[in-house]
Structures are given as structure tokens and as C-alpha cells.
């Protein structure tokens, strides 16, 4: 009995506490602001490029959710793993992927992170521990468990952070993966980027319980955090990562955030599923960049000039990525046949399409 009560206590979702600014130096706080501004400007560049047809297909922006990327990835080491869904550009940047290569991928260029073959939803930088964008909702969650499994297997002290959208917690794969993570005590932090909506359906319409309660029945400890507050999110994650490194086992984080744009570039910002007023008020009150800016200014840790300087720098970095991408070559059509198999043996593998045989 006592054990059950104790168990219950442990399983009660914990809220990440409010954090004072003095946990960080002024330089650190400015860096937070500068990074988030950079992610914002990068995504705006992508939006611009999409509008004029330089980026095609599906492109999901992270605007409004920048503090999740920085706050959850900032505290990691380079050899830790990050894996995510298709809203993946800024997580890639936060984990150290080269901005030019990410933009080049969006442009479909030969020097993009997937050599133009994957596009927006498939950003990878394996060397930097960014284990990719994944376009099938929920499918990355078992993969994260597998990375956690490998870490434990090799007795390393790395951690794996697995992002997913709120809608992903209804996939079977989510439940299967968290259960395995729990029974094998895998060093994985499952972060739900809870922006309250799937594509055009409110989470509450397709889920009987709130996000934070979805891990309890699987034996994974749950937390929730106001993820529009970078200071709180970053501090919370620093502590959590150290716990997991020390053997605390899997964790589940309901990171409360909001998407400011449409689901993808081809979807409206608001409409049948959420009102324009709702979006506008969230943008006004819960912009992660605005929240930090106001807090810093109030504490007299930031001047208008400094803000302007940080933004100028952010814009320049985004512009540089776009300019670089612009100059990159398109992949040669012969690249269709590369990277399908480890060995490209024309006679041993059936990737050869045989078209030439039909030449006259």
C-alpha cells in the first residue's frame, strides 16, 4: 500500500518552477534572445522563399515555438541525440546543423542536409546528433527509444530528446515506445510540443485526457512547462537532463506552446478550427521572443539598441543562409540512383531503371 502511494506521488505530473533571471548572466540571456530571433528570421526567410516558389511541397514553420527548440536542446551536449517530427528546421539549427545546409535542403539543392532528396520534413545532421525530421506522425517515438536503448547498451551517459506534436500521443507507436522506455529505464526525454492543435483539429476534440496525463498509465514520469518562457524552459531542462544522465530513466514533458502560423505553408493561419482572435491574442501575450524581451527590459538588462543589434545579427545570419542556399547547385539527375543502397553496383542491385534499353 505504502509503495503504491509513493508510486502515485512520483507519478503526479510536476510543473517546472518559475525561474529568476539571475540564474543566467546577461550575456547568456542575450544569447537566448539572439538565438530565438535567429530561428524566427530563418523561418521567415523560408516563408518568403516559399511564397516565390523557391521552396516547394510541404513546409512547416516553427514560428511561435522557438523557446521549445532552444530551451530543450540548449542544455544538451553535442553527443546527445535529438529526434523530431516534420516541424524540424529550428530543432536542427539548435542542435548545430549548418543553417546554409538546412536552407539548401529546403531549396532542394545538392549540398542540402539530405542532398535535396528529403526536403523540409527530413532535415538531418547525424554528426551533430540531430537524428532527423520524421514525416510520419508518431513514428520517431520508437526510434528515440531505440537510441536510448543503444546508449544504455553501451553504458554511455548520453541522453536522447524526442520531440513530437500533441497529436502524436494518440498514435499506437507512442504508447508502445513509452512502455518500453519505462520497463528498460531508457535515457529518453519525450517532449510533446503541445501547441493545442494537430493540422486543423483541436487536441481536446480527439483526446479524452490532457497531454500531460497521457504518460501516467505507461509508467513514465510527467512534467509540464510553460514553454513560451525560455528562461524557465532552459533551466528546467538543464536539471532534467542531468537527472536522466544520472540514471533517472525516461521522462515525459508537456511543453505548452503555440503555433503562430498555419499548419504548413499551404494551410490558413486560422479558420474553422481556431479563431483569428485567439491567434492574435496568443501572439501578443505569449510570443517567446516578446516574453523574454519584456522581462529583460523590465529588469533593465536590455536596451532598445541592444535588441536592435541582436535582431540585425539574426537577420544577417538568416540572410547569409539564404544567400548561400541560393548559390548551391541542383542535384544532377544521376543522383536518383545514389544513396539507395550502401553499394552502388549496377549489376548487383535492381535500382537500375532500364530506361536506356528502350532507346531506339
Amino acid at each position: 500500500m505504502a509503495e503504491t502511494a509513493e508510486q502515485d506521488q512520483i507519478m503526479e505530473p510536476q510543473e517546472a518552477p518559475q525561474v529568476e533571471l539571475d540564474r543566467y548572466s546577461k550575456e547568456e540571456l542575450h544569447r537566448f534572445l539572439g538565438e530565438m530571433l535567429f530561428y524566427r528570421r530563418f523561418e521567415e526567410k523560408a516563408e518568403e522563399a516559399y511564397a516565390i516558389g523557391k521552396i516547394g511541397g510541404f513546409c512547416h514553420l516553427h514560428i511561435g515555438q522557438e523557446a521549445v527548440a532552444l530551451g530543450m536542446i540548449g542544455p544538451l551536449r553535442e553527443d546527445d541525440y535529438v529526434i523530431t517530427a516534420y516541424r524540424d528546421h529550428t530543432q536542427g539549427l539548435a542542435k548545430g546543423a549548418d543553417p546554409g545546409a538546412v536552407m539548401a535542403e529546403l531549396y532542394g539543392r545538392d549540398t542540402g542536409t539530405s542532398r535535396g532528396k528529403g526536403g523540409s520534413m527530413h532535415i538531418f545532421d547525424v554528426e551533430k546528433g540531430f537524428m532527423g525530421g520524421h514525416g510520419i506522425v508518431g513514428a520517431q517515438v520508437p526510434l528515440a527509444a531505440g537510441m536510448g536503448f543503444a546508449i544504455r547498451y553501451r553504458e554511455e551517459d548520453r541522453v536522447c530528446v524526442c520531440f513530437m506534436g500533441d497529436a502524436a500521443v494518440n498514435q499506437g507507436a507512442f504508447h508502445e515506445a513509452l512502455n518500453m522506455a519505462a520497463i528498460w529505464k531508457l535515457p529518453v526525454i519525450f517532449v510533446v510540443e503541445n501547441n493545442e492543435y494537430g493540422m486543423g483539429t483541436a487536441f481536446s476534440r480527439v483526446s479524452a485526457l490532457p497531454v500531460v496525463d497521457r504518460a501516467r498509465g505507461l509508467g513514465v514520469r510527467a512534467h509540464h512547462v510553460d514553454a513560451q518562457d525560455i528562461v524557465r524552459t532552459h533551466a528546467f531542462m538543464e536539471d532534467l537532463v542531468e537527472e536522466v544522465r544520472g540514471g533517472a530513466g525516461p521522462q515525459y514533458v508537456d511543453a505548452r506552446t503555440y503555433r503562430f502560423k498555419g499548419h504548413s505553408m499551404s494551410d490558413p493561419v486560422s479558420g474553422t478550427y481556431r479563431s483569428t482572435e485567439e491567434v492574435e491574442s496568443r501572439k501578443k501575450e505569449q510570443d517567446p521572443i516578446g516574453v523574454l524581451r519584456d522581462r529583460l527590459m523590465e529588469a533593465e538588462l536590455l536596451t532598445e539598441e541592444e535588441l536592435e543589434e541582436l535582431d540585425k545579427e539574426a537577420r544577417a545570419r538568416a540572410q547569409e543562409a539564404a544567400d548561400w542556399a541560393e548559390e548551391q547547385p541542383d542535384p544532377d539527375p544521376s543522383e536518383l540512383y545514389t544513396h539507395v543502397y550502401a553499394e552502388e553496383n549496377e549489376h548487383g542491385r535492381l535500382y537500375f531503371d532500364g530506361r536506356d534499353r528502350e532507346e531506339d
Partner: protein
Amino acid sequence: MTEDAATPPTPEHASRTSRGEPSTFLEAIAEALFEEMIRDEAVLLLGEDIGEYGGAFKVTRGFLDRFGPDRVVDTPIAEAGFTGLAAGAAHVGLRPVVEMQFMDFISPAYDVITNYIATSRYRGAGAQPLVIRGPVGGGGRAGPFHSQNVEMAFFHTPGLNIVYPSTARDAKGLLKAAIRSDEPVIFEEHKGLYRAPFLREVLPVDDLVIPLGKARTAREGEDVTVVTYGMMVHRCLAAARSLEEEGVSVEVVDLRTLLPLDDDHIMESVRKTGRLLIVHEDTRTGGIAGEIAIRVNEQAFEWLDAPIARVTAPDAPVPYAPDLEDAFLPDEAEIARAVRYLAKY
């Protein structure tokens, strides 16, 4: 059912025919769904974002208002779960139509489709007649997970039907037949056809039902038979028109239903022309061309005057970069080249 003041309006895009207006491929699908829901209360729709949001491609826009949340069901993102649920409901008499937001996402439901739905009748359990429909195909720069054709993942499973229309008329008539059929049907809709202006047509006002399992001759010709389906029908027709000017007469057979294959129609055409090219957008190895070729070998070998040829996508995932995707997809020039080769053989 009678329309009265209390009945919410009929979705405009799903009722063009009643006003004498032409329908796109997408509107034809919406009409089929709408008419079948009116005809039979057992028909209901399940899928992600199909109700309030109207669907990723807006096929079911306005349906929720018209039919209510019991018949237009916004599901969680849980393909294995809601496809299984639909199978269970079908087993006890409902007629669910499941939308895969993109057919690429059918993969989590592979187990229930191949192990359960396909074998239900054989296992003595009776039929689980449902339709699983959704967008397929490349050309939209949508990359490896939003551009695939899924037919060959299911073609090998006895007990399933696979339908892949190429015109608005066929889309409507075949979907209505699929919903009424006692077989489980996988229904593929090429995204590139959804709003293609050249496919807009005024559909017949009467109940348009086109039987499953029957191919159609999309163009008559004498010299070479081209067997194809879906988007490739239109590329083959374009190639046939240009070859006409060179004096090569091409017959284009649109399969419409891939499983079961209409052998009779294929053989009849091959026996007439003696030359066969098979064209599909799906990848090459294990593509439907292989199955058709062996059937022709079995049933019409003596009529052949040339080896059977195929034009397909290469064995690779669908790439994102425009140049790569264009090179990936079979085009008119490649088709024409293959036809010329056969014609001269």
C-alpha cells in the same frame, strides 16, 4: 431523405452535377461520397481533419454540417486504430469510408488490412466491406513520405480490391461501386488529378456506378498497346497524340481497377496490336508491369511481335528536389521513345 428547412445545405462542390455544372476529379469524389451517404445511412466517413477542417484537400468540406459528427468522424491520428475500428464496424453492417490523409500513412494500418480485413471472409468470419481512400502520387515536391503510390504494398494480398481511377467520371462511378461492394477496397486518388482543369467534365445525372474489375480503352489504336492507370493515363494519351503524327497508332488501356486485373481486356488489345508497353508511376521492381507481362506471356504469347516493355519510376524513394522528381516520374518523351522502339521492332 427529403430536404427541408432544417436540413443544412448540401456542400456546393459535392452537388455540381445536379446543377448541370462540370466537376473536377476531386468534386466527383465528393459527389460520390455525398450521394452514397444520402442513399445509405450505413455509410459514414472516418479520417483525420475531415470534419471541422474539411480535410487536408477539402474533399469533405461542409460534410460535417450536413451529416453531423456521427457520420463525419474526426479521428485521432491513429491509422491502425481507426482502420481497425472501421473494420469492426464494417463487420457488423456499417459501410465505413476511411480517408488516409495521404496514402503514405496507410502503413501503420498494414497489419489490420492484410491480416484481418483481407482474410476475414476466408477465415469464416464474413466480409469486412470498407473503403480506404486517399491521395497518392508524385509531382507535388512533397518528398519521400507524401508522394508514394501504395498499390503494390497490397497487390500481393488476396482478398483486397485496388482501384485507381484517372478521370472524374471514373472516380465518381468507381467510388460509388466501391462503397456498395461487399469487398474491401483500397481506392487511390492521384493528387495531380484532383484539381486538374482538363479533367473537369459534366457528369451524367443518373446514378453513376462503374463496375470494379473492368478496364477501359482510353484511346483506340492499331500498332502498340499501352497499358497504364492513374496519372500516367494522361501522359500516355499525350504521347499517343504526338506519335499519331509520326504515323504510329497507339491504343491506351486504362486499367481503372488493379486488383483484380481485367485480363480479358488486356489480352484483347494485345492480340490486336501484338505489341505491349506497360507504364506506371510506381517504382519498377515488384511493380504491376511484371505481373501483367507474365500474364500476357501465359495468355497471349503467340500474338506478340515484340518483347514486352515497361516505363516506370526507378527503384528509389520519391525525391524532393524538382529536377530529381521530374527525372523520377515517367514522362511523355520516355513513353514515346519506348513505343517507337516497339513499333519498329
